[in-house]
């Protein structure tokens, strides 16, 4: 019972197929269509559509554009590393690449407006032109005047044009503090479980009945709905595990009506998938390979199983020193690293008000001098301050085990932070038989 979409000016049957293509988005489609009005009517200058990932924003808008054959330019703002690229793509989609080639190098907004005006006066609009900007949040990173200008582009170029912005972020985060033209806001809510079933069931496998596929999707959602509502991801998982679901059918062990049997077969498998392939611990290809081999026992090693890192000896100590410097308050260094710290008593050393664990607060930056001082006191042998010690510090930075705070090219007393976890440092210090816990203020 598809809702019949009604919109004067467009052919009936196109609207009908459109409704079929966009299940569960009838209300949004209806209101979008009514907003757009008849092809030659002026439309609202700018529309802002937001909603979580994979709620069908791009899909709905682009399907409408394509099926109704509306003149439009669709641009993904991630690709537009500069505003010029955006202008180029818009112009070339609306007026052909030749017109876009007229843009000067590094075009400004006014170049764009001028060229647009020129082009639209050459070929006046018979229908509303649409400019769809996906991932519009990137526009905020471009020139600050770009967004306000785009929002009232209709006025600027004096043409029947509508901007449609798509984003996962709410409009409040966009609004420039100087104020601007307010676009019309549309929200695409998340799909409910029922809706997800309905959408996913549509792409059933050609050699099986739709009912079977629908019950498969139901089982799948029963497992995954609590952790994942991303339509694209669910579709991916459905595709990956369908052959396993069909296995008893292929072997003749079960019939299509034997849903319970099929469920028993697939359910543990899906749980395993949740821990592996869903987290990308195991790649989809490896996952399918494993299904085919049917050697379930030989579990694939996931990505995080390879956490071990081999490091040169002094790098290990540098890393340990960096960890200590990051998680111990600087004033406690005397106690930990001075052989005769004598007088400092534990009572006044442990301040009462310092209840929060440094580990909860995260690593603190420390200067290079402090790192080296701690390094020389923890490393068990005399180490000359060679150039390779210093280059090891910068290697640790490129390996992202340390991170440099502040500017890259700050020569004068650079500061670092340790970027590894406690587990990691425990494993490292075990290999050099150094008891790091004894030196950590939090574990005193």
């Amino acid at each position, binding site marked *: 019972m598809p809702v019949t979409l009604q919109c004067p000016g467009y052919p009936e049957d196109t609207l009908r197929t459109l409704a079929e293509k966009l299940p569960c988005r009838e209300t949004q489609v209806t209101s979008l269509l009514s907003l757009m009005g008849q092809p030659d009517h002026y439309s609202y200058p700018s529309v802002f559509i937001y909603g979580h*990932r994979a709620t069908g924003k791009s899909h709905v808008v682009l399907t409408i554009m394509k099926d109704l054959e509306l003149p439009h330019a669709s641009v*993904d703002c*991630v*690709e537009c*590393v*500069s505003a*010029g*690229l955006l202008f*180029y793509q818009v112009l070339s989609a609306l007026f052909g690449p030749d017109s876009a080639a007229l*843009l000067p*190098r*590094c*075009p400004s907004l006014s170049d764009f407006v001028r060229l647009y005006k020129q082009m639209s006066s050459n070929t006046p609009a018979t229908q509303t032109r649409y400019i769809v900007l996906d991932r519009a949040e990137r526009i905020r990173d471009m020139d600050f005047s770009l967004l306000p200008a785009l929002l009232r582009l209709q006025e600027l170029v004096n043409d029947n044009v509508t901007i449609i912005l798509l984003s996962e972020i709410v409009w409040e985060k966009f609004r420039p503090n100087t104020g601007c033209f307010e676009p019309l806001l549309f929200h695409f809510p998340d799909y409910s479980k029922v809706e997800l079933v309905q959408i996913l069931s549509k*792409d059933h*496998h*050609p050699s099986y009945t739709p009912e079977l596929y629908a019950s498969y999707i139901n089982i799948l959602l029963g497992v995954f709905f609590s952790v994942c509502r991303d339509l*694209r*991801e669910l*579709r*991916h998982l459905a*595709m990956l595990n369908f052959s396993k679901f069909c296995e008893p059918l292929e072997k003749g062990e079960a019939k299509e009506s034997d849903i319970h049997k099929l469920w028993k077969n697939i359910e543990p498998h899906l749980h395993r998938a949740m821990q592996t392939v869903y*987290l*990308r611990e195991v*790649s*989809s*290809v*490896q996952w399918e390979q494993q299904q085919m081999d049917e050697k379930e026992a030989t579990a694939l*090693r996931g*990505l*995080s199983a*390879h*956490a*071990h*890192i*081999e*490091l*040169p*000896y*002094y*790098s290990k100590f540098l890393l340990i020193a960096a960890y200590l410097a990051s998680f111990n308050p600087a004033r406690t260094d005397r106690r930990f690293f001075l052989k005769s710290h004598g007088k400092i008593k534990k009572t006044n050393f442990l301040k009462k008000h310092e209840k929060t664990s440094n580990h909860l607060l995260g690593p603190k930056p420390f200067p290079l001098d402090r790192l080296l001082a701690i390094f020389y006191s923890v490393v068990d042998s005399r180490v*000359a*301050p*060679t*150039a*390779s*010690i210093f280059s*090891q510090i910068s*290697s640790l930075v*490129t*390996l*992202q*085990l340390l991170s440099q705070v502040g500017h890259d*090219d700050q*020569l*004068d007393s650079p500061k670092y932070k340790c970027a590894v976890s406690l587990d990691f440092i425990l494993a490292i210090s075990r290999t050099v038989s150094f008891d790091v816990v004894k030196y950590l203020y939090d574990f005193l």
Partner: protein
Amino acid sequence: MNETLTTSSVSKGCFVFKSASKKRKRHVGLDEYLVEADDDSGRDRFRICQKLWETVQTSTEEIQNQLNKKVLDSLVEFIKKHELGSSSDVWRQRTSEIPTAALMLGVNVPDHAMTFRSLCNLLQDSVTPFVVSVHAKECAAVKHLIQKVLEQLMGKAVSVDEEQEEDAALPQKAQCTISALCQWYKTATKKCSQKKNDNGLRQSLPVVVIFKDFEAFNSQVLQDFIHICSRYIQELPFIFVFGIATSPSAIQHRLPHSVSSLLCIEVFQSVSCTQHLASVFDKLILNAHFPFKLSSRVIQVLVGIFLYHDFSVQNFVKGLQFSMLEHFNSQPLSVLCCRKREALLCAKTLSQQNVERIRHLPSFMRYVETQEPEEQVKLLTSDQHVKEVCQTLLKSLHKYHKNYFPILQCLHSLTSSLPKFPLGKHIRELHVSCNEKNLWETEEYDSAMQLLRILAKNELVAALQGCSDILQSASTKRMQTVFQQVEDFINRLETLESVSSEDSSVNGAISGKIDYQRKTDLFQLQKTLLEKESRRTKKMSPFEVLRSQVIEFIDSLVREYLTPAHLQPLSEVCYFSSSGILRQRLNVTPRTSIQAALSHPYYYLQNESLKTNAGTISSAAPDLCIVYKLHLECGRLINLYDWLEAFVTVLSAAEDQDADSGDHGQLDSLKHARFIQAVSEMEFLGFVKSTKQKTDHVARLTWGGC
């Protein structure tokens, strides 16, 4: 230099300018490097060194290729698999991920370049011409990354077929987009498929993007790039290779789930750097055919740098190269450090000078002392005789090496399976201890032998079998007889079984028990050992008798062949032993050198007038040194005026002695200027910096002194 050299950079760093004149100089006489006025063999040494270095290069390359073969092959397999599977099933096309290979390379970053080079070559030869590799340094923003990819792809394909010269112009930067690449790709593949229509089944050629240093990439850049590429994956079959130095979890740390879900990641592990180093050792250092040798100290320095600092095999080989250069440069007798035949030839034609040098070699002098008196006289007087003796000594040195290495390998294979590795886990450790002193006099050797003495029969046979495999390929006659003896022992051990199987089973049980305890306690082990010892005195089974014979035999081999190399006459010819120089050059301490230069200017300038006794400040020293020494006596903050006063006093102290000029100790503007220059040099070197606390003070930046 009268040309002005400029860089466009204002940032830190040093810039290397290759001056044209230098290059010309190199061409004049590459082989004159080692030639000194009174020396004729320099050219020969240079040639030998050059040749050896070529061997080193080819064999390291070979080793690397061999070691990488497996991982590279599986990588190529992975890429081919995805190339074929990309568009087979329409039902599944809807969700396509970008195939991604996470190539684990280890933290020895300097070695990666070679791996990537062979990967690129391999891919271009066997899979696809479209291979791009990018470095994080060049890709600070996503547009740079895209630009790099485009440049490499389009530039390369243009250079392949020359007709389309006009395409060569890169698109304007404004159009550096993946969609432009898409257009280009369509035409390029059309051309490709036209060319090789005969094997028409070929599917779309993948575009491989290699991220050489994944960790160093800005994660936002990566995320954006992956997003963009995934939009085009249907038309442009991308395949990524991430070169990862740490661990695969780096991917999860850098990329959020929404992005990593666009990838289909598989992990490929390359060989570890320690394994790599071990192969280099086998091929170049523990090999009798490679005439140049390193002394144990030098090995320790090089291995130390490897283990403690960088894990880089590349740097290790550089160290080896440096040792070679140093050896051939500083040791004139290294003309004899070559293949046996050439060395003998060379010995025949030694110059008189070199004969004299041989006489002064410590190992040769030791040899002379062991000879009869008349022989001694002959050796000291007749050059011809020295040349002849030299030849026999060279022969025996070569023989020594030919016997040494097989026995070393045997001993290693015997002891490397013992608990706690009494003689070291790696063969290089065993080699070092053999070269340091007589191995059989060490405690470690004793404990290893004791452990060998309690091996069960099957273990012993297996160990001997390992030895016989090693010895089989050994070339000398002596080694062949040793091989026969080992085989003989194996046979006897095996026939023993049929004679008294129950006996040996008892024994096996005992040592089986010991085997158990091994892991728990060494002390316990010794106790059982002693118990056994006492039991043995009572009665020994045939197996035990035979076993102790075997151990005796091994021990005799060790004593005969594993003698330290420096005791061999003429060993200095082949062995490079200046570990001090090596350490100084390879493991530099910039801070110490600067301090040495500033506090002892004589050390570098070698000017007699700069020689001072400690504690005094000479006015003859460069201004910078004077200022430096004065600042050592100050605290954290230095009053500039006091410093200037002290400086002027030191300078005028000298003038005082010359003449009693009236204006001594006075502040003339010349001294003032010299002082200011020296202080700014100090600031440049990072010893002081100006401070905002007090305007007429500078802060000291180094520790110590106060």
